[in-house]
């Protein structure tokens, strides 16, 4: 006992009961910032806080949030995947081109719509599978592998669509965002359901706990009997599928499938996760945090539009906002983000 009292590292001994409650609050650390942004929006524009506007923010968030979900899972295991942004474009494009007729720039196979959707998901899984193989099995560096994959996928999409935007006969692929339930698009419901399912899984299921252990200390996880390689690999596959789903939601939100769909989005994906408290080192972070990160970034984006910022300046301002948000969350969270 006396030993403990004198060890500087164990000084938290004094107040044990607070810990458990306090930890929950930290996951919601971004909520005050979110409220501030909403209030500012409300002051600038009468319509910012209307139901329609909020639905707009949520619809726009749905696509991003599914990719962030996938990325967060990969980050938790201590790896990362840059290629998710082009999976988000390539997978729906591939599915769409298998379905739509040649006249609408399809391959001419004209498979049924549901098979096209399935193809989208399989394409996402396949990309993740290859990434996982290269990173987990061949032990290549995740940064350069997924950067190369990003370029390959983007190039493939541009090549096969000849750089054209697909917009004709895409009903099956936009349904996710155009069908609504209780006033909200299905994509929002789907994103919410996925976050709930994965969030609970991370907290209540052994595989979820394994992700944290693997990211925290791979060797210790292995020594504890966790099949580290199999799970890390699987996470890449799941992330690929989630990115493909995010791509579908995005296509629906925009109403067309551009050759550059998802281009540059990976910055927002990483920013949302990191601002939300997911560690780039692995083993730390929650989906509640990541989700609040997405909502905050998306709300800020909408605020910029409402504030009538000249569109040619949006990108620069957006980048600065992400930097500022990272700095703020570094000090609000109190932990290094390395």
């Amino acid at each position, binding site marked *: 006992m006396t030993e403990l*009292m004198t060890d500087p590292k164990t000084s938290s001994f004094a107040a044990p009961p607070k810990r*458990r409650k306090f930890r929950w609050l930290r996951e919601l650390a971004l909520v005050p910032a979110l409220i501030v942004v909403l209030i500012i929006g409300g002051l600038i524009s009468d319509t910012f806080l209307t139901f329609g506007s909020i639905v707009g923010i949520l619809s726009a968030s749905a696509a991003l949030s599914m990719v962030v979900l996938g990325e967060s899972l990969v980050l938790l295991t201590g790896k990362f995947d840059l290629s998710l942004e082009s999976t988000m474009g390539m997978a729906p494009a591939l599915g769409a081109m298998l379905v739509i007729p040649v006249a609408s720039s399809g391959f001419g196979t004209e498979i049924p719509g549901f098979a096209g959707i399935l193809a989208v998901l399989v394409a996402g899984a396949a990309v993740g599978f290859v990434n996982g193989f290269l990173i987990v099995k061949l032990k290549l560096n995740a940064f350069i592998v997924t950067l190369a994959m990003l370029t390959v996928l983007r190039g493939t999409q541009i090549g096969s669509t000849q750089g054209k935007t697909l917009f004709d006969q895409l009903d099956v692929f936009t349904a996710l965002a155009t069908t609504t339930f209780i006033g909200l698009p299905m994509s929002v419901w789907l994103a919410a359901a996925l976050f709930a399912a994965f969030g609970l899984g991370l907290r209540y299921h052994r595989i979820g706990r394994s992700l944290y252990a693997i990211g925290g200390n791979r060797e210790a996880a292995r020594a504890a009997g966790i099949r580290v390689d199999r799970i890390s690999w699987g996470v890449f596959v799941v992330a690929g599928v989630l990115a493909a789903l995010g791509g579908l939601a995005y296509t629906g939100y925009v109403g067309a499938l551009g050759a550059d769909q998802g281009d540059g989005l990976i910055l927002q994906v990483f920013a949302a996760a990191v601002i939300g408290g997911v560690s780039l080192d692995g083993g730390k972070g929650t989906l509640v945090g990541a989700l609040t990160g997405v909502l905050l970034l998306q709300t800020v984006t909408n605020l910029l539009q409402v504030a009538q910022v000249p569109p040619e300046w949006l990108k620069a301002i957006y980048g600065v906002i992400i930097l500022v948000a990272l700095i703020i969350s570094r000090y609000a969270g109190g932990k290094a983000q390395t």
Partner: protein
Amino acid sequence: MSALPAGSAAVPVVSAQGVGKRYGPTVALSDVSLTVHPGESHALVGRNGAGKSTLVSILTGLSKTDTGHVEFGGVPAPPLSKQDDWKRAVACVYQHAMVVPQLTVAENLFLNRQSGRGFAIGWQRLRRQARELLDSWDVGVDVDTPAGELSVEDRQFVEIARALSYGARFIVLDEPTAQLDSQAIDRLFARMRQMQANGVTFLFISHHLHEVYEVCQAVTVLRDAKHILTAPVAEVGRAELIDAMTGEQGGLSVRDASTREALDADADEVLAVDGLSGDGFSGVTFRIHRGEVIGLAGSNASGKHQVAETVYGLRSPSSGTVRVDGKPLKPGDIPAAIRAGIGCVPRDRHHEGLVLEHSIADNATLSILDRMGKGGLAAPAARYGRAVQALRDYDIVAADADQPVSDLSGGNQQKVVLARALAGDPRLVVLINPTAGVDVKSKEALLAVVDRVRAEGKAVLIVSDELDDLRLSDRVLVLRAGAVVAEHRAGWSDGDLVADIEGVERG
């Protein structure tokens, strides 16, 4: 080189008087005094958390003392901002490497002063200086070797030489022997004596008391942040020293296996290892029965760790079989080993034992996540409950089961690892260096747990460098160069066992 005053009555190399340090409400060090005389090796001992690290950080200019003052050679210590002045007075060689592994020894020695007073780096001159420096202290290391390729032993010498090159003649060695085998320890001690003769003074930190007797002239004991005693080593006995560290009477109390009743002749066989060969060992065969403890002893290079790691599946064997309860175990498959009923305390708790940032609850349940609930559910409440139970069962001192294990002392961290190894109620427990780097008190507690589970009928395989750990064993197998060369029944004498481990005749 600073001229050293002759005679023991000379000005002390370092003198700390009434040093104290608080971290918030916690007293890390209270009114501690330490005087080290020139040319001696002064041991600093105490249990984990006794204040050794805090004292070292004050003596090496990493943190500022709240009370009292520190003098080097009669001159007040420089302010913390003048790190160059500190480097000329004192240096610490830590357990973990403080070299840049990719750079050569020569560049490491002169890091950030490669070019001397010049503008460009003269590589020839740098290497020549490095060689001269190492030669002058008789360190036989090639200056062109990347520092990361050095053995622990050579790396320590390089760090010592670097410290000396700044002019420091007072060196703190923080558990220098922890990662060395006994030959390397002997070489280290020989080199220390040689440097002592050349006017270097050491503050030597170790958990191994016999090393204190071997190489030190004076010893200071800290306990609970306070100074307990300082005396010439020749005047304090081993038991007295342990008492001073623990604050209790009587030395380390570990039940020797020879004092308990002999094992049932018809006890079931739990583990059968036959002709097991792999990286660093070959043809190892042994049996462990219910309620039996088998020890594996040997030098670090003997292959004893690898044998135990192969049994648990951390390594794949090249040939041979491992059977638990007669059923062959799939080689190199840890989940299969756990299912078959093996629990393991791995070799290094930081490297493969714990996820330091995560809570006790997460760590204590890591290997039993699949049996916490239906369909793989492992709810936080269930994990928390298991951990609270473990805190109680294994007497782990922690504020709460939600506390990160990085907050705990080494002894308590190791108890968490042991708790996890036992969480699945295994038939066989494989313990690799189970008491490495923990204090005397925790060591007793850990070994008491091992004795308890043995009495419950578990089979135990214990691999250790420490004789105290091996005393629980019914039999100790000694490995040398990857093969079992001797077997000692309980009741062995330290001398005989050590002679076998080192491969020397006792004459």
